[in-house]
């Protein structure tokens, strides 16, 4: 019983299982083709009619014929919390406090008469701070990168927006870290908190960005501080997860050593456990910063000003050249913040005691000196204080020209490719998924669950899909699925060979990992930009954006999987006289496959997250509906749609990681 509940079929019976599953599926579809499949097994009641799909957009009238009006129930629940429980008092209080806090940071960075009433610092002062910080943490490269980024904001006329974004981050990051730490510690201390939290964390990690925005808007209204709240809610889960992981990884012997040293329980926590979990915590801080940045850009949709807002404006009016310059600013900010926080985390503390004062504090002293110099100099040369509008640089026209050129010269080819793809690949794939009776899809997923992970997996994954069916979004979910499937397929076909090719040489591998690292720091919304520039706004661009974003983990995990094979195994292959091809086929790929599959899993997760963002350039799936819910501030609908996306992702995630973990154990890699 237990065996069948938690374990799938034994390896030797798997093939038979797949064959049976395929046969039943085929039979089901045949039955439908013959027209004898009962309607209740074929199609579910839905919000939108299927016929609305081909007319692109939401032409179909909403019918509200879902089986369970979950969205309305949520609406009522949220109403109850807000009005009857008086939660709005709390939200208004939080809102006001946050506004003050952001005001303070805004004032420090940009001056003005709000907040502390300070006057604006010269941009050169911020530049030297970034420069010295970069140098003291890592060296010249980071110094020039950081200083250069600040300079870029100033001379490209993006100063105001960049500082607004920084002020948002300055408020959101520390709050997220503290909340994450507290919740993580609580979950470590109380088992039931951990158990309650784990599913919430999983959903939180797969819930689309936009789905977070809707409840926040409902509770906190539109505005700057609302963006910060959404950002905090979005950035806390990874910190919680890493705090918990770090604390759980501290070895029991170290805990015992602490106890034998006579620690009280708070001494144990602050002087033994948290410091021993340092690596995970620092990684958490880095993740919080990156998540915050990604979300701060997206929070522009609910009125958070800054670079994201500016970018959104320019994109909506199709000023691509200016958009590109803002995009570069965001990317620079991401790379610099990532670089600085990583360098800070990896920094080795220097314990050589008894340094003279000036040597111990050489960087702060240097910084104070250079900042003072910047202040003094900017008195005489105003351009060092603030770059006047008419002196800012822009290449927007050049970029626009380039885009025009692309449109002019490539359009025909691209249009042909587009029509070809849509007519021959995309539309058939989509129609197949839509043609499949919903019972067949449930059967497929449940069957895979049964084969790979036993009843537990089957029930779990089925529950995820049944939810989507019950709330009336089946067809839209299938459209999301088709885009994810297609994008994932392309990522596998392109990404894995690229990964293999890179892994074959030390230098290429390092280059590939470097670029994967760099690209991964870019906020996801940024990937929309080049796609629009190359493909304009149409149905193919959305998929392109997904592919470009989701291919990163496919490459990275392939490289890592092959490079991390134990050296003894490689030596054994060498001694057996393998040539490069034999080594790849007989050693590297089989051993690396579980890790590569985890990469594919990540690719799928990335694809799900991007597909929703890509609704910005026009899709007709769940993402489009989430966008619509956001503009209507329809909280129930938005949350239900978000959960649909999250549940699809979680179902896939469950099956793939299960397979990969089992495979690793089978290969004895754990």
């Amino acid at each position, binding site marked *: 019983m237990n065996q069948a509940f938690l374990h799938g079929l034994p390896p030797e019976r798997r093939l038979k299982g797949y064959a049976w599953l395929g046969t039943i599926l085929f039979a089901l579809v045949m039955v439908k083709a013959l027209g004898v499949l009962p309607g209740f097994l074929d199609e579910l009641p839905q919000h939108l009619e299927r016929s609305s799909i081909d007319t692109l957009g939401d032409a179909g009238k909403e019918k509200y014929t879902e089986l369970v009006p979950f969205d309305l129930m949520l609406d009522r629940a949220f109403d109850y919390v807000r009005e009857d429980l008086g939660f709005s008092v709390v939200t208004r209080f939080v809102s006001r406090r946050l506004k003050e806090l952001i005001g303070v940071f805004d004032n420090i960075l940009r001056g003005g008469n709000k907040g502390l009433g300070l006057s604006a610092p010269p941009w050169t002062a911020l530049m030297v701070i970034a420069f010295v910080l970069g140098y003291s943490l890592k060296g010249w490269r980071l110094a020039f990168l950081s200083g250069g980024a600040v300079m870029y904001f100033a001379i490209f006329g993006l100063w105001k927006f960049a500082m607004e974004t920084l002020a948002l981050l300055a408020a959101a990051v520390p709050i997220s870290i503290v909340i994450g730490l507290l919740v993580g510690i609580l979950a470590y201390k109380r088992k039931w908190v951990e158990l309650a939290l784990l599913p919430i964390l999983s959903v939180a990690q797969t819930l689309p960005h936009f789905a977070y925005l809707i409840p926040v808007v409902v509770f906190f209204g539109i505005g700057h501080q609302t963006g910060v709240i959404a950002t905090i809610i979005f950035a806390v889960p990874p910190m919680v997860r890493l705090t918990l992981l770090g604390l759980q990884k501290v*070895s029991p012997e*170290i805990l015992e*050593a602490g106890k034998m*040293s*006579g620690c009280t329980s708070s001494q144990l926590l602050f*002087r033994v456990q948290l410091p021993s979990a340092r690596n995970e915590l620092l990684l958490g801080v880095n993740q919080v910063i990156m998540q915050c940045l990604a979300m701060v850009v997206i929070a522009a949709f609910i009125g958070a000003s800054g670079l994201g807002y500016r970018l959104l404006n320019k994109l909506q009016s199709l000023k691509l050249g200016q958009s590109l310059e803002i995009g570069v600013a965001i990317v620079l900010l991401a790379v610099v913040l990532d670089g600085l926080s990583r360098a800070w985390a990896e920094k080795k503390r220097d314990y050589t005691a008894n340094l003279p004062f000036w040597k111990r504090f050489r960087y702060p002293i240097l910084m104070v000196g250079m900042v003072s110099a910047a202040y003094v100099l900017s008195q005489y040369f105003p351009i060092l204080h603030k770059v006047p509008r008419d002196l800012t640089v822009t290449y927007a026209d050049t970029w626009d020209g380039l885009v025009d050129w692309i449109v002019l010269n490539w359009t025909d080819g691209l249009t042909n490719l587009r029509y070809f793809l849509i007519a021959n690949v995309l539309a058939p794939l989509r129609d197949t998924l839509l043609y499949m009776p919903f019972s067949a899809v449930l059967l497929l997923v449940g069957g895979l669950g049964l084969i790979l992970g036993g009843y537990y997996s089957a029930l779990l994954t089925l529950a995820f899909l049944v939810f989507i069916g019950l709330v009336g979004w089946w067809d839209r979910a299938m459209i999301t699925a088709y885009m994810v499937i297609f994008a994932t397929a392309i990522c596998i076909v392109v990404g894995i060979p690229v990964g293999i090719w890179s892994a074959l040489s030390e230098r290429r591998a390092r280059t590939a990992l470097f670029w994967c690292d760099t690209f991964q720091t870019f906020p996801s919304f940024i990937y929309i930009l080049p796609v629009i520039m190359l493909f304009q706004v149409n149905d193919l661009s959305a998929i392109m954006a997904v592919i470009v974003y989701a291919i990163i983990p496919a490459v990275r995990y392939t490289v890592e999987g092959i490079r991390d094979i134990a050296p003894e195994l490689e030596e054994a292959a060498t001694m057996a006289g393998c040539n490069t091809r034999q080594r790849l086929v007989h050693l590297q790929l089989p051993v690396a496959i579980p890790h590569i599959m985890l990469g594919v899993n990540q690719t799928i997760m990335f694809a799900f997250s991007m597909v929703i963002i890509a609704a910005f350039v026009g899709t007709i799936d769940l993402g489009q509906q989430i966008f619509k819910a956001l503009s209507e501030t329809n909280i129930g609908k938005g949350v239900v749609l978000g959960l649909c996306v999250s549940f699809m992702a979680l179902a896939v995630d469950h099956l793939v990681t299960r397979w990969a973990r089992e495979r690793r154990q089978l290969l004895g890699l754990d």
Partner: protein
Amino acid sequence: MAEPVIRCRSLYKIFGLGPADLRVDSDGVVAPAILEREGVVAAVNDVTLDVSPGEILIVMGLSGSGKSTLVRCLSRLIEPTSGSVEIEGADLLAMNDRELIDLRRSKMGMVFQNFALLPHRTALENIAFPLQMRGMKRRDYVERARDMIRLVGLEGRENNFPRELSGGQQQRVGIARSLAVEPDIWFLDEPFSALDPLIRKEMQDEFLRLQSLLNKTIVFITHDFDEALKLADRIAIMFNGSVEQIGRPEDIVLSPATEYVARFTSDVPRERVLRVGSVMEPPGDDENVADQAVNVSDRIEKVVEYVLGQRLPVPVVDDGGAVVGVMHQAHVLKILFPRSSPPETVNPD
């Protein structure tokens, strides 16, 4: 005899079982049948023992026999299922958190098998850690930690992080840390087993040197019989959570209490365990003896070459020089090689 420092009576630790479920057989141990039925592990099963002041008690036994669990019960790092432990007459198991912390801050030290150093602290800071927990002033704990560094011979390594130290150096830090609060009771759980043989020998000598200076009450776990023989005042042999026998090394080797102990000790080189005193015979009246005597407390290993090289029996003297016995070569051989049988007699045709 002085009051024991550690006094433990009918101690049980059964993982997965509460004190209420504990049903004990007539002979005191929880029967294997019960354990099997409940699907639980009896890591410590009815252990009773005393450790006297200044004594080194070595705990031995196969992997999984409950040695670490026993020591963790004695230091109350884990809660025993039942039984009593007294530390210098005070009931350990009745102490509240505050008292327990005070006890560990002043009386107990522990060295761990895998060193268990705090990764974010330097050697010096690791050693100072228990002192800081006590709320000692910075100047004082730094000074004391420096003393400890000197004691274990780690001068010049104060500012290294654990990952920058070799295994032997890390364990020295662990030892120094456990000694920093000047504990009277010292627990060591396989402290040297992660070290290579040369360093291990060096650390054992170091340990003996420290003990001759500090004279602590020690419970020391090891897998290594050589190590046990070198360090032990008494040895306790554990099997499936119970102490099979506890006594001086000679007693355990010469008169094993159970079949298990006999097998456990069968490969032990006897000349290294036994002392002259345990193999000599009473002095004869008018025997011719060799000129040079051996000391009654010497190990056989040390004198065997001389004794066997003599044609006459060898006299045995005590520290005062008085003759207390003689060693006959035939008797010595019989004790050293108990299992050798006389050759079969062959009748030459």
